[in-house]
């Protein structure tokens, strides 16, 4: 099988497995039991991992709060910021139509608590119209939440500019970095970002852990999503999963060291794949073609066929129609619809995510199988349409 769904999840790097292994196998300590050696050792490992995560995004270790993943981090950032400021007059929460479902669901949940969610449209290129953002910010706004890179179409948002606009209006900026971390250079302090969500399993770390960056200067204040033993400075209770934290740290360390060379290589594989497909799929069209995007992402329409049929016809390829969370849905992707695609165009769109462990041979296999499947499906479609 050729795995080309690296935006859904990524293969855990063998170096990450090796780093986690002793913590699964040999050390029982609870990292919060700092009174005995086993606990202190676990605590030290967790802190070393925290420093690696911080280093990847230009933050300090004390700005990193571990969570179970990016979904929880997004919930904590958005609900936490809103609930902490519940007594202020700022009620507006601004996000974009192409955000991850968990961001949209979080602002939706907050509507029931008296907040005002504003979902901004995007351009055909998947970009945020800065004038639309600025206009929305005329009403006192608590928080703007815009992802760094989109999970379906790979489009990158200009966080530095968005941060400047949000801060000029007195709003905080949260960004979902799940897809961007380890793929593009990030510097939370230089980019002036208040909150940022990370996921380990999107960057060749383990599933089950993520983090929220919470700015210290000036201090970003949050209410905890859930309380308990008071771990993570009261922002996230629950025993920290030491092995997963260690694996996350190692994944970030590898990403930081390898990112530039790796992304160049992945982008060239992506270009090779797209060129190979274009040559044999007439009318193949990239979604949001003019936008800056992640090096490994293709979101493209295969005219006249349903993407689900293409996937079924290529059982040896792991590819998807869009977000994994909604893979089983038959409703069109909210991201593609936001770009202005018709339901038929959305249904003909395939997402391909190239990652660290893909080789040129994988790409050639994918080209051969997708083109053969397309050739088999397209005439049937045309005949059906003409009949």
């Amino acid at each position: 099988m050729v795995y080309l769904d690296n935006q859904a999840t990524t293969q855990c790097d063998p170096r990450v497995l090796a780093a986690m292994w002793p913590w699964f196998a040999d050390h029982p300590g609870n990292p919060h039991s700092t009174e005995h050696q086993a606990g202190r050792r676990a605590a030290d490992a967790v802190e070393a991992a925290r420093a690696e995560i911080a280093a990847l995004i230009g933050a300090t270790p004390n700005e990193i709060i571990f969570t179970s993943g990016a979904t929880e981090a997004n919930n904590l950032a958005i609900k936490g910021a809103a609930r902490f400021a519940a007594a202020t007059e700022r009620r507006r929460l601004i996000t974009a139509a192409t955000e991850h479902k968990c961001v949209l669901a979080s602002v939706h949940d907050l509507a029931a608590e008296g907040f005002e969610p504003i979902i901004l449209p995007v351009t055909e290129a998947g970009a945020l119209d800065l004038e639309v953002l600025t206009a929305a910010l005329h009403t006192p706004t608590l928080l703007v939440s815009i992802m760094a890179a989109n999970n379906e179409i790979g489009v990158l948002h200009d966080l530095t500019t968005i941060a400047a606009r949000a801060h000029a209006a007195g709003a905080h900026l949260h960004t979902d970095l799940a897809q961007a971390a380890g793929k593009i250079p990030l510097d939370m302090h230089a980019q002036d970002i208040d909150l940022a969500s990370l996921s380990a399993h999107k960057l060749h770390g383990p599933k089950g852990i993520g983090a929220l960056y919470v700015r210290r200067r000036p201090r970003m204040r949050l209410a905890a999503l859930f309380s308990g033993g008071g771990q993570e400075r009261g922002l996230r209770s629950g025993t920290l999963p030491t092995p997963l934290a260690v694996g996350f740290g190692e994944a970030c360390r590898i990403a930081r060291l390898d990112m530039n060379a790796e992304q160049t290589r992945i982008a060239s594989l992506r270009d090779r794949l797209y060129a190979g497909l274009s040559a044999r799929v007439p009318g193949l069209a990239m979604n949001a073609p003019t936008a800056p995007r992640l090096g490994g992402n293709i979101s493209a329409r295969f005219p006249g066929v349903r993407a689900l049929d293409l996937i079924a016809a290529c059982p040896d390829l792991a590819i998807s129609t869009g977000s994994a969370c909604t893979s089983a849905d038959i409703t069109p992707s909210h991201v593609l619809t936001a770009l202005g695609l018709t339901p038929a165009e959305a249904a003909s769109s395939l997402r391909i995510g190239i990652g660290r462990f893909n080789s040129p041979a994988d790409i050639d296999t994918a080209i051969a199988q997708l083109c053969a499947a397309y050739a088999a499906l397209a005439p049937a479609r045309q005949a059906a349409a003409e009949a």
Partner: protein
Amino acid sequence: MQEKTKEIYLDSNASEPMRPEARDALVQSLTIMGNPASIHAAGRAARRVLEDARATVGRAVGAAPSEIVFCSGGTESNVAAITALSPGRTLLIGATEHDAVRAAGPCATILPVHQDGTLDLAALESALAAAGPALVCLMRANNETGVLHPIAAAAALCHAHGALLHVDAVQAAGRIPVDMAALGADTLALSAHKLGGPKGAGALVLKPGLHLPALIAGGGQERGRRGGTPALPAIAGFAAAIQAAGDAAHLAPLRDRLERAAIDAGAIVCGTGPRLPNTSCLALPGIAAHTQVITLDLAGIAVSAGAACSSGKITESRVLTAMGLADLAANAIRVSLPWNATAADVDAFIEAYCAMAQKKARVGRAAPPKPSVSHTLGSAGLSHGGISAAGTVAGAARPTQPSS
């Protein structure tokens, strides 16, 4: 002391060592690269592991797979249940509940416990009668003392008054039988790493037909009840661990021997109700709990003073204070045997513990007369006279099956 390299871990209520079965399941699932929500072959392989794990965890607690909601751990499952079920209901929480439960209901009515650590059922009944629609939160087994609440009896009272019952079974699962129907729970919280699975996974178990809004909103995972990509390797390890765990009855003789030796050295056992087979909460009057933990740590033995979550802070045990043992709260340590504890581990503990107690006694002779055990108990208002008689305590400490 001289053999500092050998580390003896007797803090399993903070975290159990990983079981080999859990480790094997983890290894296998770590190499599965798919997202269980993806429809391609890699995703379906991940989905199979997830659903097999769901069925296994369900079987272990007498629940259908559809009634298992995987999450990040015990804290999250407790909070998710309380957050979802408490609106419109009076919250009644046991006085010895875990901080995660207490913090989720800061305005809750606190249900008192007896001096043996068990719930005061009469107080529960009058609280239910006064409360109107209520949510009651009780732990199956206490994390500091191991004491078991009479959950089935409490459930009968709850349901007679139309109240819902959430049971925190984090410490009980894998050590004594835990069954949704036998307990009469509406929701039940489980944690993987407390039963020999990996940290980073837990589950909320729902009574059939109960619907819960999500605490963490997301992409519709876990039937819309918990967003986020499931923590697959940890969940696979969780299922393997709960399947392998069975119960911890084999630890009772070890624990009882440890406890008898501690009592002979001057310790007082806190929490004499029916208990988990692996836990002993030992107070040694005159030595601060923190000093005891450090002394034992230097001897290579890991125990704790109260819950791990609050280990960093040096506060007296709230659990013991709630039991009317305030006088002992600053002097009590928790010894909790892991599933793989050996007789040699217990021997080493006894040696170090007795040395610590004797040293104290030597120092104590030069100092003003130390309070006698019976004096300490008297001032704590205790009535169980047999506490200093090893046989009586060990008898009371025998694990009791959850027929209560």
